[in-house]
C-alpha cells in the first residue's frame, strides 16, 4: 500500500473534526506511515476464506418492550453543558 501523504492527513483530520498545526501535520504524516507500514504485516496472511470477527463473544440484537420510562430531569441533563438556553443545548451558529 502506498504511503499516506500530507494531503491525506489533512483530509482525514477534517473528517475527524481536528485542526492540526503545521507541526502536527508533519508528525502525524510520519507516525501514520510508520504505523501503517507496521500494519502491512497483516498482508502476509491469506484471509480470503476467513470470516471477519466484530465481537469475540456471541453478540446479537437485544430487544425490549417500548414502554414509557422516566427520563432524566432537564436540569441534570443540562448541568454539564458548556452553554444552554430555554432547556436546550446552545451552540454557535451553524451557518455564518
Amino acid at each position, binding site marked *: 500500500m502506498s504511503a499516506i501523504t500530507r494531503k491525506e492527513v489533512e483530509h482525514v483530520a477534517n473528517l475527524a473534526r*481536528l485542526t492540526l498545526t503545521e507541526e502536527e501535520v508533519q508528525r502525524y504524516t510520519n*507516525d501514520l506511515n510508520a504505523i501503517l507500514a507496521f500494519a502491512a*504485516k497483516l498482508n502476509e496472511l491469506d*484471509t480470503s476464506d476467513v470470516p*471477519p470477527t466484530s465481537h469475540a*463473544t456471541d453478540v446479537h440484537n437485544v430487544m425490549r418492550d417500548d414502554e414509557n420510562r422516566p427520563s432524566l430531569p432537564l436540569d441534570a441533563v443540562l448541568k454539564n*453543558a458548556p452553554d444552554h438556553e430555554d432547556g436546550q*443545548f446552545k*451552540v454557535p451558529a451553524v451557518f455564518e
Partner: protein
Amino acid sequence: MSLFDKRLSEIHSELTKKQLSASELVEASLKRISEVDQELHAVITVDEEGARRQAKALDERLAKGEGEFGLLFGLPAGVKDNIVTAGIRTTCASKLLSNYDPIYDATVSRKLKEAEAVIVGKCNMDEFAMGGSTENSGFYPTRNPWNPEYVPGGSSGGSAAAMAARQFFFTLGSDTGGSIRQPAAFCGVVGLKPTYGLVSRFGLVAFASSLDQIGPITKNVEDAAYVLQAIAGHDPYDSTSAKVEVPDYLSALTGDVTGMRIGVPKELIGEGVDKEVREAVLAALKQLESMGATWSEVSMPHTEYAVPAYYLLASSEASSNLARFDGVRYGVRADNADNLIEMYKETRSQGFGPEVKRRIMLGTYALSAGYYDAYYKKAQQVRTLIIRDFEQIFADYDVILHPTTPTTAFRLGEKLDDPVKMYLEDICTVPVNLAGLPAISVPCGFSASGLPIGMQIVGKAFDESTVLRVAHAYEQATEHHKRKPEPVRG
C-alpha cells in the same frame, strides 16, 4: 500487621464483628493518599468529604447492627477515572473532560455502592485509556511505587500504582489491550481482566467497545475474586452484557491444581522476552508442576499479527466512539470559534492530547472510503485467526500461561517518541482482548534492579474460576505478592 495487608474477606469479618469501623478504613486510605500521592500522582480526584460522610453512615448502621452487610462493606475503593461516578468528577485524564460531573453511576459504580464500598478516589490513567505508561494522562504522569523513575504501566497505571502503594483497599481498572494486566505486572499487584461481557460496560467511557472490559486490581488473588463477585453479572443497560450465571469465585480457590494442563505458547516465552522475565515464569511453571499440574509448550502461530490487528481495530472503534466529544453536551468547549464546525474542531484539537489524536487519525483513516477492506476488514479477519489459535490450544489445555509483559517497567520518557515501539509492548496482552477471554496477571518475581515481574494466566471464556484457582494456588505457594514497595517518601 498493617490494615492494608489483611485480606478483604478478613476485614469484612472484623467489620461485622465491630472490631473495625468503616471510618477507620477510610481514614487509613486518606492518610496513605496524603502521604504518598504527592510523589506518585496515582489519583486525580479524592472525594474526602463524601467518603467520610459515607463511612459515618455505614458505621451508624453497624452500631445498630441492622440488616445484612454488603460484601464490600466499608472498603475504600479507587476507581479508574473513565468509569463514571455520580457526583464525583470523571475526567478520563483528559483536559476535554476536566470539568465533567457525571449525572449517573456506571453499573459497576452502582454495584460498588450497593455492596457498600466507599469510593474514595478516581485514579489516573492514559487519556481515554490510550497508552501503556500513564504518561499520556492530560494532567500528569503516574510514577511506579517501586522506583519513581519508572512508569507504572498503563492505561490503568493510577489504579495499579495506588494499589501497590496501598492507597486504597482495592481498585478498578479497564482493559482494552492489557490496560489492567500490564500495569498490575509493572507494579507487582494482581490484575484481572474478566471475559468480555461478564462485567457491565455501562458507564465505562468507551474506547474500543468490542474489546473494553472492567476488572479489579488487588494485592492478592483472593481479593480479586472477592471484588469480581461484587461487580460481575448481566446488565440490561449493556447490550453486550452476557446472560450467564455468576459462580461463587471464592469457592474456586481450593489450592488444588492436580492434573491441571497448562499450555505455554512458545511465541510468548522465547525471543523478545527478557531473560529475567523468562526465568521467573519458567520457575513459576516448575512450582506449579511440583504441585501436580503439567505443562508443555504450544504454539499460537498468529501471535505476531495480533498487535497490528489490535491497533487497527481499537483505533477504528475509538475514532467512532470519541466523535461524541464535540463540546455540545459536556466537556470544555473552545471559546474561539465563530460557527459550529469550527467549535467542534477547536474543542477537540485543544482538548485531546497527542496520542488520542494519533489514534483518532489512524482509526478515521482505516475506516475511510477506499481503505476499509484493506485495514479494518483485514484486521477483523486476523482477529478470527487469533481466536482459532486459542480454540486449538483450549481443546487440550485448561489454561495458558506466559509472561504478562516481555520486560519489566521502563523509564519515563523512554518510549514516548516511538509509537510502534510502545505498541509492541502489548504483544502478550492484546491477543486475549481480541478473543474476549479472561486473564489474570500475578506477581512471579523481581528483576535484579528490584522491579516486579508478572505472569499471565489465560482461561476459556467465562472460566474465571479456573484462572483464579491456578493463580491463587501459585500465589499461596510463593512469597512474591507479600513484598511491598518501600514507602514512597514518608
